[in-house]
């Protein structure tokens, strides 16, 4: 019984959610092996070897893996799979894209987006946008599992010294080609891991008005989120979307501004520790999950909120 975890990285650094997935993997079994498929990705392999929960790093280093394509990754993983009882990765756009392709080739029925490890074959996962939780038992010989990163703490990044073993590349795919990635760079904390998130919805009325959100976010060192309505309306880019089909966030503080609180949005944020809702419609469903609700026009409330924050002597970062 060993777990093979597929790392997500950019050939220089490991992506933070891989560390959450490592935590979950070690709850399944202590023998966690991490597979790094990359190009000039030695630094990634070395940094993962320092994670104490990791027993071995398998490094496949070849220029064909400069950009991630599921079509390229799959053969490497299926070849290694016979030595493992579980294959796992994070349930973000990386893992959601990759794991089913692996599972189908192994004739395995995948367990997606788990929030709890109950035993080596039994897991809890949300269904219906988190309005219900299913406890499921996988009866396949190899278990393919993706992990909801925000449900597990990240593994520590130092103190370990796992062996790094090199392994062979597969054949390069000819049916799919990477063209470009438009990454939105920001100095703010990442939405998925931020301690505070300030989100705007359709009530913001324009992209320009999101500067009111940015000002508060700057003050609180927060990430900026958005409802699907705000993204669809073009107020803000898709990488900010929180919800069933966007990102799931579990910050200490979530401030929802001008968001009515559709089921699909609540799915992405209702596990937050403290929820604040600012909305002028007192009947908006967002108030049913809010710890502190303020029924007010956001265009009055946000500048005033910033003013009050400025009066505080200290603000947690």
């Amino acid at each position, binding site marked *: 019984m060993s777990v093979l975890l597929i790392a997500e990285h950019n050939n220089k650094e490991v992506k933070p959610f891989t560390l959450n997935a490592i935590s979950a993997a070690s709850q399944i079994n202590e023998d966690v092996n991490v597979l790094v498929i990359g190009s000039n990705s030695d630094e990634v392999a070395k940094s993962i070897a320092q994670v104490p929960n990791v027993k071995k790093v398998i490094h496949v280093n070849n220029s064909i893996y400069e950009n991630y*394509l*599921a079509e390229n990754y*799959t053969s490497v993983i299926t070849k290694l799979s016979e030595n493992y009882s579980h294959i796992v990765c994070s349930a*973000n*756009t*990386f893992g*959601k*894209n*990759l*794991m*089913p*392709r*692996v*599972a*189908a080739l192994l*004739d395995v*029925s*995948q367990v*997606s*987006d788990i929030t709890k490890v109950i035993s080596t074959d039994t897991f809890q996962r*949300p*269904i*219906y946008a988190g*309005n*219900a*939780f299913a*406890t*499921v*038992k*996988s*009866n*396949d010989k190899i278990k393919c599992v993706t992990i909801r990163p925000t449900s597990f703490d990240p593994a520590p990044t130092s103190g370990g010294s796992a062996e790094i073993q090199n392994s062979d590349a597969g054949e390069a795919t000819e*049916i*799919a080609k*990477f063209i*470009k*990635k*438009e*990454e*939105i760079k920001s100095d703010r904390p990442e939405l*998925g891991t931020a301690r505070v998130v300030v989100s705007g919805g359709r009530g913001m009325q324009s992209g320009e008005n999101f500067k009111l959100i940015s000002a508060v976010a700057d003050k609180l060192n927060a990430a900026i989120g958005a409802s699907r309505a705000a*993204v669809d309306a073009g107020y803000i880019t898709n*990488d900010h979307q929180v919800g069933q*089909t966007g990102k799931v966030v579990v910050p200490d*503080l979530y401030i929802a501004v001008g968001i009515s609180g559709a089921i699909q949005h609540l799915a992405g944020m209702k596990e937050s*520790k*403290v*929820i*604040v809702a600012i909305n002028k419609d007192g009947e908006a469903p967002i*108030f*049913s999950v*809010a710890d*502190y609700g*303020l029924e007010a026009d956001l265009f009055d*409330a946000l500048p*005033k*909120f910033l003013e*009050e924050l400025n009066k*505080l002597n200290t603000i*947690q970062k």
Partner: protein
Amino acid sequence: MKILVAVKRVIDYNVQIRVKEDNSGVVTDNVKMSTNPPDDNAIEEAVKIKETGKAKEIVAVSVGEEKAQETVRKALAVGADRGILVKVDGIVEPLAVSKILQKIVEKEKPDLVFMGKQAIDDDCNQTGQMLAALLNWPQATFASKILVKEKSLEVTREIDEGLETIEVNMPAIVTCDLRLNEPRYASLPNIMKAKKKPIEQFNASDLGVDTKSRIEQIKVEEPPKRKAGIKVASVEELVQKLKNEAKVI
């Protein structure tokens, strides 16, 4: 060019679901059912491509109980030319659905298969990728823009970091994001016309696919309820509460 579009019948996205008292699942009796929302985007995109003259035929397929015929019929009303229903009772896991779709693809030989990126009932997000694996076709998941070229597609994908563009050779699988397009409503004349369009029916067993569950559903529970919060009267009070009571700022 021929496009196969897979559609799923799910509980309507506006319905607040209820968990059954015996924890065996969620209540579906007398609950409004609809097409899985991103599957509507998949149909819409296929129809748009047909309207440019680049596709000749659109076939809508659903896997599910008898009533999934309504979902196929809706796709026909929006612009699919004919339908296929593969009947299966009870829960069908994405792996079994993708094996059924594989059989349909082998029969129909489409150049493209479109479907929604995720079904909003089980939230699995697997079927498209699994079908691509079984067929050894490329996959363009979470598509928010599709450019049809001679023998390939250029697809913009919504990913955590922003947007990614890839090129996939045809035949290919595309799973559609909600932002790919704005699904149209079926007009009354088209709904009438759709009633005359053919829907071919199969049983999963006719296709030789084993649909037995590999995953045991042990129980389904309600999520823990959040304690009701309070309404604050002013911004000043809100900031004081966050600072001194919740201690989060």
